[in-house]
């Protein structure tokens, strides 16, 4: 540890401190290790102090994203609507999925599913790149790194809220009147946002170490989309499958949040007295709560564990 070897050293401690090693000197004056990971509680406090930055960063990104496009932020709504159109044609009309739904409600069911799933999909995708794409920012400024994946989830939430306007119009156009269940939209979205933030934090840490993962994500997300029954009803097709597979499908978080929001927006789809209807699997709110809170806590701690390493890239 005796690094003071040169004869001329402005570094060497003087007076009473003469002869101390750098480590001893640092200890004596209570200097802290630069860039050390703070404890979980003080980390959370720091993060809370940066909430305005997170919000400003998210809003700025959202605005900047579409400055080149003439229609601007309208594309956030147009793209998923075009998707809905194609899905309606292929799955609803050609594959006759809409026959399993009460008259005219399939389009509402489909649109809710597409928008809700896209929220999770985008959160995962942008979370994966949150650290890797912002290394410059991480190497230049000090802030809790969790700000980035959280900001990207906030961006997706803002996009979803814009899409919600279109969604409400679609639901009304499908002949579904607003009711008390619409109040459930808020808690359902809140839980989904918690879940998405958690996933985004997990993916951000993985993506920061393994850049290959971003090549795999689009495939994983597409597989997840088809398995979650975004544009057709999975439960109608697996009724005679083993029980454990049905349970597994029912606790799939994407299905849980889609079911919760579909039920909130259009309870008529799940009306048992109609000849063609969907059944809401049991305990969906419990699953939604468990996934949301559980994933958020796991993701937050998992991300925080590597806090001091994100600058290395």
């Amino acid at each position, binding site marked *: 540890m005796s690094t003071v070897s040169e004869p001329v050293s402005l570094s060497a401690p003087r007076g009473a401190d003469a002869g101390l090693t750098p480590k001893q000197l640092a200890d004596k004056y209570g200097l802290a290790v630069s860039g050390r990971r703070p404890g979980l509680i003080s980390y959370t406090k720091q993060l809370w102090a940066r909430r305005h930055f997170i919000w400003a960063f998210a809003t700025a990104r959202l605005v900047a994203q579409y400055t080149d496009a003439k229609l601007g932020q309208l594309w956030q709504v147009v793209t998923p609507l075009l998707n809905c159109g194609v899905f309606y044609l292929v799955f609803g009309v050609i594959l006759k999925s809409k026959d399993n739904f009460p008259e005219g409600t399939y389009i509402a069911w489909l649109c809710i599913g597409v928008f809700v799933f896209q929220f999770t999909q985008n959160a995962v995708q942008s979370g994966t790149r949150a650290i890797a794409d912002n290394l410059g920012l991480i190497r230049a400024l000090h802030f809790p790194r969790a700000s980035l994946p959280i900001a990207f989830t906030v961006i997706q939430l803002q996009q979803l809220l814009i899409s919600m306007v279109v969604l409400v119009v679609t639901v009304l156009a499908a002949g579904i009147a607003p009711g008390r269940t619409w109040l459930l939209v808020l808690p359902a979205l809140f839980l989904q946002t918690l879940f998405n933030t958690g996933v985004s934090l997990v993916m951000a840490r993985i993506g920061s170490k393994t850049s290959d993962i971003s090549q795999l994500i689009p495939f994983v997300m597409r597989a997840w989309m088809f398995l979650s029954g975004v544009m057709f009803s999975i439960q109608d097709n697996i009724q005679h499958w083993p029980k454990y597979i049905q349970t597994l499908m029912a606790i799939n978080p994407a299905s849980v949040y889609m079911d919760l929001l579909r039920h909130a927006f259009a309870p008529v789809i799940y009306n048992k007295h109609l000849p063609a209807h969907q059944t809401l699997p049991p305990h969906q709110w419990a699953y939604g709560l468990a996934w949301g809170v559980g994933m958020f806590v796991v993701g937050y701690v998992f991300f925080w564990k590597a806090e001091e390493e994100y600058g*290395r890239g």
Partner: protein
Amino acid sequence: MADTDLSKRDLVRDADVARQPTVVVDDVHIVYRVHGAGSGKGSATSAMSRIISRKRAAGVREVHAVKGISFTAYKGEAIGLIGSNGSGKSTMLAAIAGLLPTEKGGIYTNGQPSLLGVNAALMNELTGERNVILGCLAMGMTPAQVKARYQEIVDFSGINDKGDFISLPMRTYSSGMGARLRFSIAAAKTHDVLLIDEALATGDQAFQQRSKKRIDELRGSAGTVFLVSHDNNSIREVCERTIWIEAGELVMDGPTEEVVGRYERGERP
């Protein structure tokens, strides 16, 4: 060299005071890992053969940017870091700021050192106005503080001298205007330990005068200032102590006149 050494020691013995250290850098090594540096990383056959032959990472190369540097900085010092391009000066600064993890050794600091620079937080598509707000928030200011400093920052940058440019996107700025706004945002906050990376050489004559003055003010309120620059004159003006780094190793650490003089003559001790 021995003479100056002795005289300095005598001076110290006269004073015989222990100085308060603000930054202790103890035998620090920093290694960058660069992905995709290997040859033919993208081709499928090479990727396959890599998977078959070895398990991991032929495409990852390690760059040993800082190799065992030690020094201690004390309160009230302004220290220049000099060395040729790629010698590890900026890496050293980022490590002091705690932004780059060290491979080996330790960096101990008094409070949170801050790098003077917000370039990365700014977005070219946004207006100057929004960038001022975003940059200040990124540095950890509260919205109230941002509001209070906003006009000062804009006036200091001189962006609005020739019309209302602050409400235009930053991509429409000339490179000088952009640099001026970035410096103005970065310099709006005071710090305990301030790290400055080549910030002095931006803008026109009038702006350079203003920024030198601002850095002096920052120095006054900061405990210790580090300055990385290729402009030896600004090092001479600002710093009384200079550390010369070459290829990640500390070449010389001493009074500015001596170190910069030797650096200019290319005399390594």
